[in-house]
């Protein structure tokens, strides 16, 4: 096994086990920490596929900003006690079975698809220079529209989170 394959399997096992930890841990804070570990593993996969820009953006935006926001909300609500009511066993079992059925159906459909091997020679399309050129020439209109999306999301979050008249706490 080459170093590349060892890294691939290590990151795969890490991503899957941490993803299982997200949905199985009782404490929401542990779930957030497992999800951050999953995002780091996915960023490692991006680096293996030579998409350095997306790897960095994934760490900064997801593991940095979004998960801190989640953690902040959990701490704000003081949910780190194990007081969460659980669904009953039957519904949990139904969830696992239907998720596993989805997995098996798509797996069976894709199992015999044609194999394309990702060449390990480095392509440089994932570097920030090439992505920036593509983003600011071919996709400049969606880029500008996304700024409007951000503005509306920001205003929406402020309006929703605003305290209503006469409401306490």
């Amino acid at each position, binding site marked *: 096994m080459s170093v590349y*394959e060892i890294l*691939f399997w290590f990151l*795969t096992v890490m*991503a*899957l086990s941490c*993803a*299982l930890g*997200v*949905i199985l841990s009782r404490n929401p804070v542990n*779930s*957030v920490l497992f*999800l951050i570990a*999953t*995002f780091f593993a*996915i960023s490692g996969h991006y680096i293996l*596929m030579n*998409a350095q820009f*997306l790897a960095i*953006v994934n760490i900064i*935006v*997801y593991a940095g900003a979004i998960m801190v926001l*989640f953690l902040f*909300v959990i701490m*704000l*609500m003081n*949910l780190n006690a194990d007081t*969460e*009511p659980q*669904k009953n066993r039957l519904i949990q079992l*139904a*969830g696992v079975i*239907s*998720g*596993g059925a989805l*997995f098996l159906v*798509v797996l069976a459909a*894709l199992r015999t*698809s044609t*194999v394309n*091997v*990702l060449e*390990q020679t480095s*392509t440089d*399309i*994932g570097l920030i220079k*090439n*992505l920036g050129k*593509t983003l600011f020439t*071919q*996709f400049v209109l969606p880029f500008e529209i*996304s700024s409007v*999306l*951000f503005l*509306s*999301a920001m205003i*929406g*979050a*402020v309006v929703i*989170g605003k305290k209503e008249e006469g409401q306490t*706490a």
Partner: protein
Amino acid sequence: MPVQYYLFLSLALFSIGVMGAMMRRNAIIVFMCIELMLNAVNLLLVAFSKMYNDSSAQIMVFFNMVVAAAEVAVGLAVIVMMYRKVHSVDINILNRLKH
């Protein structure tokens, strides 16, 4: 690495996200499982981008992250608002739109 491995890895991550969204009652955990599903799709898009040697898919991943960030801001505001109203983040309390 065959691209199928990445296909199956992101499929497994997506299925775990689906399972979590159906198993848990905490609204924040359900929201995090949706983020997990988004990331599984992003991983597959990057693998396909490398397979076809085309950078459009990576731009698509970039916009996915933009939309996810906006979605998280609004969604967490909704959850905080819900917590202020009913003092719980249990999604079973919200099975009616008015109460």
